[in-house]
């Protein structure tokens, strides 16, 4: 029997050998990893560039400049070598991601020009997370860096479907809230898209990009076999009266947990930022007052702070702010170690300024927090919680601020806050 002509492959014979496939896969992986390494260097380059020193956010308060050596938290980001950071693996990845989220401060006063420079939207209740899609999978990570879900999705390179264009390794990062009741990821920001960083872009541009890009991918389609969870964008409003009204009392398909305000001109800034603010009251949130570890609202305000080696208890701000201290005896007695997050109750609920610093007075140790918690409370949160118990910032105040149309100046605004 004569063999078939050279160019004619008998239909029963395999098109390519597995060896050829292995070779092609290896070459493709190498190419992808190269462009991955180069893109990550680029991405991180642009994110590192956006990391200028943080502006002093509370001018009235001189934050303690002294930073504990033991607390590595939030420290190293700006000294990350971009190329090296791109290679982080395992637990380092967790730590790295934990530092990437933009963390809104709590609104303790109304920023000027709210109606001109800000967006507002109702914040979905749920788990805040980073969603990363690359290499055919989608992974969501909670604020503490741990993985929430690993699943296929319609995000770019979010599932191993055969029609992806471009390198499978280029990744996309979304800032989301996972809303349990309808198992939906509500996308509140876009950080990277197909390997390109949006860190350097204004919120205005990011939201525009988010709205136009997400719909291209089919990520908002109902769940299916290769798209386990739906991704929805949140309706974002100009922060004028109508926008504020719609956000505050309008119907949304999810359970609301307060309102989020984004400054239009702000870049995506990892860590705490005053250019994004959260505010809530009993109408737009079920969780205005913090609960304790048993889920009850304690009679006294409780605060979670980080223990430093000098016994000081600090917030998670960068730099951290010390709000009180524990005695060495108490530390030894309760088996606490430096870096532990501790829950303390404020005994005397009158806040005082001592030498320009906020002093919570005598603190009562309630206990260690559960270990999934990654960060202490921020300074603004302590203030907001305190205000919520005593003299809350009301929706009327926000409305009034918009109506008065930018007549407020900074000092006035801050005075309001400091009266509490």
């Amino acid at each position, binding site marked *: 029997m004569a063999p*078939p002509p050279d160019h004619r492959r008998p239909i029963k014979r395999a098109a390519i050998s597995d060896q050829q496939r292995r070779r092609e896969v290896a070459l493709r992986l190498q190419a992808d990893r190269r462009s991955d390494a180069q893109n990550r260097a680029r991405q991180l*380059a642009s994110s590192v560039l956006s990391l200028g020193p943080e502006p002093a956010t509370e001018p009235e308060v001189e934050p303690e400049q002294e930073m504990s050596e033991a607390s590595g938290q939030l420290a190293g980001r700006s000294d990350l070598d971009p190329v090296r950071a791109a290679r982080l693996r395992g637990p380092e990845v967790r730590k790295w991601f934990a530092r990437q989220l933009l963390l809104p401060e709590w609104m303790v006063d109304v920023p000027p020009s709210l109606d001109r420079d800000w967006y507002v939207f109702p914040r979905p209740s749920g788990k805040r997370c980073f969603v990363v899609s690359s290499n055919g999978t989608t992974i969501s990570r909670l604020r503490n860096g741990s993985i929430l879900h690993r699943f296929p999705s319609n995000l770019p390179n979010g599932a191993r479907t055969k029609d992806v264009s471009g390198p499978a390794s280029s990744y996309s990062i979304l800032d989301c809230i996972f809303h349990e009741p309808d198992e939906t990821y509500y996308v509140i920001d876009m950080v990277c898209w197909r390997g390109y960083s949006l860190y350097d872009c204004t919120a205005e541009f990011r939201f525009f990009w988010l709205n136009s890009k997400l719909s291209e991918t089919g990520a908002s389609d109902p769940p299916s076999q290769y798209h386990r969870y739906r991704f929805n964008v949140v309706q974002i409003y100009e922060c004028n009266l109508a926008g504020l009204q719609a956000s505050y009392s309008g119907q949304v398909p999810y359970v609301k947990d307060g309102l989020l305000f984004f400054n239009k001109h702000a870049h995506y800034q990892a860590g705490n930022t005053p250019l994004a603010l959260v505010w809530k009251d009993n109408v737009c949130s079920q969780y205005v007052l913090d609960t304790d570890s048993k889920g009850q609202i304690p009679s006294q305000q409780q605060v979670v702070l980080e223990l430093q080696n000098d016994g000081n208890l600090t917030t998670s701000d960068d730099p951290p702010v010390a709000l009180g201290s524990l005695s060495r005896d108490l530390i030894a007695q309760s088996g606490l170690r430096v870096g532990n997050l501790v829950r303390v109750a404020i005994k005397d609920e009158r806040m005082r300024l001592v030498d320009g610093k906020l002093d919570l007075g005598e603190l009562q140790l309630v206990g260690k927090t559960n270990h999934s918690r990654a960060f202490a409370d921020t300074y603004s949160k302590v203030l907001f919680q305190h205000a919520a118990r005593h003299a809350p910032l009301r929706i009327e105040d926000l409305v009034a601020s918009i109506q008065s149309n930018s007549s407020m100046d900074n000092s006035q605004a801050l005075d309001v806050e400091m009266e509490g």
Partner: protein
Amino acid sequence: MALEVTQILLNAQSIDAATRNHAEESLKQIQEQNLPAFLLSLSAELANNNKPIESRKLAGLILKNALDAKELHRKNDLAQRWLSLDLATKTQIKTSLLQTFSSPVSDARSTAAQVIAKVAGIELPHNQWPELIGSLLSNIHQVETHVKQATLETLGYVCEEVDPQVVDQEQVNRILTAVVQGMNATETSSDVRLAATRALYNALGFAQANFTNDMERDYIMRVVCEATQSSDVKIRQAAFECLVAISSTYYEKLAPYMQDIFNITSKAVREDEEPVALQAIEFWSSICDEEIDILDDYRSEYTGDSDVPCFYFIKQALPALVPMLLETLLKQEEDQDQDEGAWNIAMAGGTCLGLVARTVGDEIVPLVMPFIEENISKPDWRGREAATYAFGSILDGPSPGKLAPIVNVALNFMLAALSRDPNNHVKDTTAWTLGRIFEFLHGAAVETSVITQENCQQILTVLLQSMKDVPNVAEKACGALYFLAQGYEDEGSVSPLTPFFQDIFQMLLFVTHREDATESNLRTSAYEALNEVVRCSNDETAPIVMQLIPVIMLELHQTVEAQKLTSDERDKQNDLQGLLCGCLQVIIQKMGSIEGSKYAFMQYADQIMDLLLKVFASRNATVHEEAMLAIGALAYTAGPNFAKYMPQFYQYLEMGLQNFEEYQICAITVGVVGDLCRALEDKILPYCDGIMTQLLKNLSSNQLHRSVKPPIFSCFGDIALAIGENFEKYLVYAMPMLQSAAELSAHAVSQDDEMLEYTNQLRNGILEAYSGILQGFKSSPKTQALVPYAAHVLQFIDTMYGGREMDDAVMKSALGVLGDLADTLGSHVGPLISQSSSSKDLIEECMVYDDPLIRESAEWAKLAINRAVSG
């Protein structure tokens, strides 16, 4: 000064090895001592009718090999050597060759014809030997048929060797006239007619102008069609070969002839001898190839157009073509499944049916179903096999929506046939058809898979059982499992295969150990299926894959230890080592990518590395390549920890980089250097002097296969990104190489698609090198060292942009480099970039590009440049 070579040439064909070796040695010596005399003697020997035919034939063969070689580099050397011989010698050799035409010995004439073609292939492009074609054509009117026959044969060979542009249209016309006249039914000698028909086959590429002339084309087509009716089977076969060649070269000219060709081919398929029938089927396969390409072009996103319009010949012929092909399926041969190289009417018919299905899609289904229904349960195995084969053949093409209902009904029947049909042939085709079902109707890309959680278990049970069947059936069952698993590669954590992993691995390992595993490619197929199942493992099944590692290592260990093998055993050993290394590579890649299993996997790293290093002792290219790929995967997974293996591994790395002959190994090794860079980062520094030296040497060698050059440039980028400013000392060597390659590739005029593709690969490699170097130097105090090169980099991109032949990958890399340039050098290059107008235009143009990746690369570059220009 001709030497007496007859005896040596005869001795060189002696059955006695010593005599033979001695003769070969003498020939080599003469050649080295006096090449012109040697070649002259050979041509004289070939021309001399008093010499024995054996020595004449070998003389011709050696002469031919002195003029041409497969390998491009050597081919060029030989051509150069011939051109530099003195004119008198060349003329005398050519005269001898032409004289040989009058020899009564046909083997001598035929050998001379081939040698002449080789000389023509070298000389005609240099405008030498202009009288050749004229003198050949003057022979055509010779009365002696054997001279005529040799002349036509030579014209055919010359056309095969020479590029059509080298011969002017006037000569082409004369060649074609002579050839077509020789083919004509009025030619009484069938030797002449056969030689003419074969010559036409080679001359078709020259007939571009003649095929646009209706009268000339009609004439050629008529003569070819008439020749298919010759009483001589060889002429009929050669005529059909011409039709096949015409179908691909002049597809768009065929419309007026299709009805006649259909009648001719279908008669040949049904009634003629096999070699003729095979060509007749091949004609239709070839038409399918053309239409599939055209329709692909129509569907392509970017052009949506094709140079050649589709005439839908297949669609029109469908109602008659499909029954004709189905008939062929019943002409199986008893043992065709055992013979890997087998090719017969049934196989060609099924292959053509598969191509028809891809050409017309859904329309073929109703034409094939009645045949399947009629034959699938026939008592004669031929009916059952043909029905199954028909079904398997049409699974690629029609829409899953059209096929799924039929497959859902057929699946149980197939599974039953695979377990219970008494005929091996039927089982073989059934297992193959199941594999095709899994390949085309199952997996992430298919809307509704025909495989469900429920039937998956049943399918697996049958497949695993069939792996104990005769080797060819077991091999097909492994192939089917491969595609079944492939469909689950994207599945994430819920794969129905999960509960069966253990059973699957056990059975596949059992198969690899079967005594008859080397028959029918069975062992290879089993390892390929094993690899695919590993590829679709997940968090849950990773521990089971992990248990596989010691097993595979033990097997590999045994092959490394084995000693004193016969050469046959050695071959098998090499095959096995290659398969085991391949399997390890897949396992390493997979375990490295599953976060939970990576650390557990790393406990085996030392042992695996130890074994792979031992494997390098083998001299086999495939084994080296597989081991190198496995090491690349291990390096990527191990990350910086791989540093501890470097001292031992380095020598093999260098060996791989030096392997010019087996350039695949060299290319893979260059890729592994990239893996190492990403794994080791600055820990690769101590090895960089050696690696860079070798890479630079490779680039300056003209012996290295060109396909390795682009990856070498990319590798420069990998190294620079890993070692950062330490790359400074290589700049003085690497940059000029990059610059001159950039210069060449920017101005390259690409004659064909292949060349264009290569040029773009080269450009991409160069750009990746620039990106890596720029990024590596970022934030370094030595950034200044790069400033002098910036202008050239920009110029390179400007020139490419001006030339308008960048493909998407190059465009994207170019945008990346623009961004990196701005990002790393900042205000140093701000003014330069502002001046580079085409770069600005390029970015603007790409901002509105269809491809989102390019659009976003452009946005990035713009961002970085704005920063540099404003900063």
